[in-house]
């Protein structure tokens, strides 16, 4: 069936993948892609240049005849109105957000929260809300570190979509507020919205988040397998492959059961130590096991977090960015364990269901394209 879809944030990592996925699987969908004008994007997305010199997304995909690219800025309403003039969309994939842990909360609020409000304002006035499907991109970060239920042996049970908000950093706060804006519009205008909360994304072309872990293991030459004792304290690794993420978004857009629902998008649970061991193996780096008692590990991680905090402070003084953004360092002592049962129960099958398949695909791409240095 012919459909007109809008993809915002189309020049970003997930945006380009979504456009590619639609082009590959939905030949009768017409895509209106939008993103910031080039100069504005360069000004805001400082992470894109700083963290990898090889940075480049698949923006050439936007030149496909099935795609029409119209630059727009969510913070300027006039530019959004241009997008909707004389167009009735069937699906809107709202990906556009400033995903940057280093950004100030005020900037994040302006782009992520107010930008979404502007978009929804225009949508509510110009679109047929009885037919329009709105897929909203949020993040698992809105949960922060939840209070986990425990199984009979004391191991944490993955948190599901009913877990309350507890955002730990500015970015997650802005995403929580963004979700609330969408929820508010959904109630007021009966907008058929679906919320997706992806875990940290990995996949080819990515230069932020999980990419930093790969870069650190590759550059240091070591993958340290911290074996925390007692075992029930071992930290989980939450991930999602970008291909699964965009496939899930399309899947949800086509399933009316998902209207008004929220879905975690995350691979099956795995431990950080297993992920690091496998990563070290793929990157030809040394791996060593280091058993440690949880309180000592936590104290040491908090010390590293404090060091990183100082680095961030210094970097801000020097008007630049630290080696690793502070919020990412919190992953070393927070338990982030989320359930993907809800989307599985709806019938979605992950192409990369576990850390091994997702990591292998990503690392092989990086090595093949020299985004990670290698001798081989």
């Amino acid at each position: 069936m012919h459909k007109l879809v809008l993809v915002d944030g189309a020049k970003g990592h997930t945006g380009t993948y979504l456009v590619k996925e639609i082009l590959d699987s939905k030949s009768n969908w017409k895509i209106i892609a939008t993103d910031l004008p080039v100069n504005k994007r360069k000004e805001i997305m400082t992470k894109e240049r700083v963290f990898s010199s090889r940075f480049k997304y698949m923006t050439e995909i936007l030149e496909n005849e099935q795609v029409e690219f119209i630059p727009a800025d969510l913070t300027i309403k006039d530019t959004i109105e241009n997008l909707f003039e004389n167009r009735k969309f069937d699906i809107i994939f709202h990906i556009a957000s400033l995903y940057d842990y280093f950004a100030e909360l005020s900037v994040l609020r302006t782009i992520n929260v107010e930008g979404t409000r502007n978009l929804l304002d225009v949508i509510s006035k110009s679109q047929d809300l009885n037919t329009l499907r709105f897929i909203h991109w949020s993040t698992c970060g809105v949960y922060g570190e939840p209070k986990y239920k425990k199984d009979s042996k004391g191991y944490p049970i993955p948190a599901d979509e009913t877990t309350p908000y507890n955002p730990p950093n500015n970015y997650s706060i802005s995403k929580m507020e963004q979700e609330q804006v969408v929820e508010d519009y959904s109630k007021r205008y009966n907008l058929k919205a679906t919320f997706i909360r992806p875990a940290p994304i990995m996949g080819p072309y990515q230069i932020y988040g999980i990419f930093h872990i790969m870069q650190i293991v590759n550059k240091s030459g070591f993958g340290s397998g911290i074996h925390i004792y007692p075992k029930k304290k071992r930290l989980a690794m939450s991930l999602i492959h970008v291909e699964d993420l965009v496939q899930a978004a399309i899947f949800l857009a086509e399933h009316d059961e998902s209207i008004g629902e929220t879905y975690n998008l995350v691979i099956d649970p795995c431990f950080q130590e297993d992920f690091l061991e496998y990563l070290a193996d793929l990157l030809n780096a040394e791996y060593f096991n280091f058993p440690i008692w949880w309180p000592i590990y936590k104290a040491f991680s908090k010390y590293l977090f404090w060091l990183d905090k100082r680095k961030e402070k210094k970097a801000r003084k020097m008007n630049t960015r630290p080696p690793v953004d502070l919020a990412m360092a919190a992953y070393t002592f927070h338990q982030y364990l989320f359930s993907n049962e809800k989307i599985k129960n709806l019938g979605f099958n992950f192409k990369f269901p576990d850390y091994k398949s997702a990591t292998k695909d990503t690392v092989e791409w990086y090595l093949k394209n020299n985004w990670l240095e290698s001798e081989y």
Partner: protein
Amino acid sequence: MSFLEGLIGNFLFGWLNSYLYRKYLRKRNKDWIVFLAMIFITGLLLLDILIYLEIVDMTWVNALPWVNIPSIQSGKYFMWNSFLLFGLDLGITAQPGMDVFAVFLFISYIFWYYFGSKFGKFLHGYRPYQQGFYLIFRPVKKFIKDREKRMKEEDKAKSNK
């Protein structure tokens, strides 16, 4: 070098050689790590054994005013009394049975070199593009300086293309 100096020296040279290997030598020949170890350990071990057996005479260091090595068993005295050259004379004289310990200490040279080499690898990396754990602990100013230098070089390379 006496025993303790030898052990410390082995560790430090293992560390230094590991750094040199990663930074300069691996690009030329991957076997340099073995060459360096063989050259250094053989040289030091040979020298110290010859001193211990008094084939190399160390009484010449008596020229230093704070050193006083006896003429009998001068080599053993030099080897057992570490840091003589730095003015620390513990006055340990060779006793029967100490030769066995000396053999163990000589053998341990290899291991101390290995520990130093491993430590260097851990701290500086092994392959030319690796930076070891120094990557995590290096000062932020240095990191930023390096990053800006890299970005300038890449810009230059891009503009040349």
